């Protein structure tokens, strides 16, 4: 989607505001929203791309007004209903801040993340990389152009790079393809490259002639230039 999450190159957001001695979490609800998202993700009813896409579907005015963990919370709530963990009426009560009836608690279900499994979950070394022997369409040094495409689903090809020419700087190997993976269609494993775009190619003649932006792009985002 051409959403407001795709922020690279936008103007008007002002200076980067930093906080001295910033805590990891600012409030208790941020801790809980963070942990709930990871714990429910461990059910594997959705993948990382699905959850990114869920946050990207937040209405743009709300997205910009929301804090980081409010976006996480919004995405989690959407997925909980879409994947059948909650019915819409339950979510409506949650959003109204109405706590569940505590009389009806059931034991931890098979598939949930028990505390003993947390270290293994967090130390898992395998995520989106795949061993599929997919041939690379490009080699380091190849000139490429990012496709000018505007999918209404999920994509990791930022708008500022579309239609721009760059050079393959590094082949990272084979990874699942987010555009299809986010929709649970197929993993479609393929090579991901660091593509170097000169700052002037992206931003025009006012950009510094030495500078460059490296964008990690999948084979399906690129054509030979």
């Amino acid at each position, binding site marked *: 989607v051409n959403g407001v*999450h*795709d922020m*690279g*190159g936008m103007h008007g*957001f002002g200076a*980067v*505001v*930093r*906080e001295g001695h*910033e805590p*990891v979490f600012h409030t*208790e*609800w941020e*801790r*809980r929203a*963070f942990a*709930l998202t990871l*714990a*429910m993700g461990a*059910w594997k009813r959705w993948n990382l791309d699905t959850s990114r896409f869920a*946050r990207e579907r937040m209405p743009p005015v709300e997205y910009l007004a929301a*804090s*980081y963990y409010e976006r996480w*919370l919004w995405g*989690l*709530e959407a997925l909980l209903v879409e994947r059948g963990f909650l019915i819409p009426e339950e979510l409506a*009560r*949650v959003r109204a*801040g*109405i*706590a569940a*009836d505590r009389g009806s*608690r*059931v*034991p*931890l279900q098979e598939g*949930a*993340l028990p505390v003993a*499994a*947390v270290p293994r979950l967090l*130390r898992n*070394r395998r*995520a989106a*990389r795949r061993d599929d022997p997919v041939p690379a369409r490009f080699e380091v040094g190849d000139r490429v152009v990012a496709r000018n495409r505007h999918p209404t689903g999920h994509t*990791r090809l930022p708008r*500022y790079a579309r239609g721009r020419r760059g050079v393959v700087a*590094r082949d*990272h190997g084979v*990874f699942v393809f987010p555009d299809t993976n986010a929709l649970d269609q197929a993993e479609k494993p393929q090579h*991901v490259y*660091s593509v170097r775009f000169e700052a002037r190619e992206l931003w025009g003649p006012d950009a*510094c002639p*030495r500078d*460059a*932006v*490296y*964008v*990690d*792009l*999948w084979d399906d985002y690129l054509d030979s230039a």
Partner: protein
Amino acid sequence: MSARHDHGHRHVDDPSHPHNAPLSEVELRVRALESLLTDKGLVDPAALGELIDTYETRVGPRNGARVVARAWVDPAFRRRLLENATEAIAEMGFIGRQGEDMVVVENTPRVHNLVVCTLCSCYPWPVLGLPPVWYKSAPYRSRAVIDPRGVLREFGVDLPDDVEVRVWDSTAELRYLVLPERPPGTEGMTEDDLAALVTRDTMIGTARVAAPGT
């Protein structure tokens, strides 16, 4: 802590919410969600506590600082780090979620690297912990790619024109760590003392490592 998280108490280390303040809408909402998911047997409250504790107290930028210091004192490690960052960092025990596939980019007198995620907030958790708010903010995500020198100036890094700025947009599942330049005057320092000089921002690329005593 196998007992259910006590929703009735307040955390004393939460300065934004003094005792007796009414709960905000989002606080009520998260509490309602947690209690519902717990009642349904979908989440283990003890697991939530463990997830929080891991990133609040055990994983953070001190890990990355140790990687940087090791690279400064051990040329063979530095080579491995730049060739295969994932494996070199794993040698030090820093592995896992949001660091499954690592890339380290090296600052030199001619090249300055800066890391961003314009599309969300991708960040190398095992070596840096969870990202600061500014890294996730619209100003940083929008400007780092189009105005990296302006952003760096706001952070106090003024780069001469003959230094090349390379911005790494974390659009895929690679996670980037900047290997900052070792400052002058640190020749005799131990690895531990060197690690103490390395701040989080130097590994994102928004700061340079200050020489000791400056």
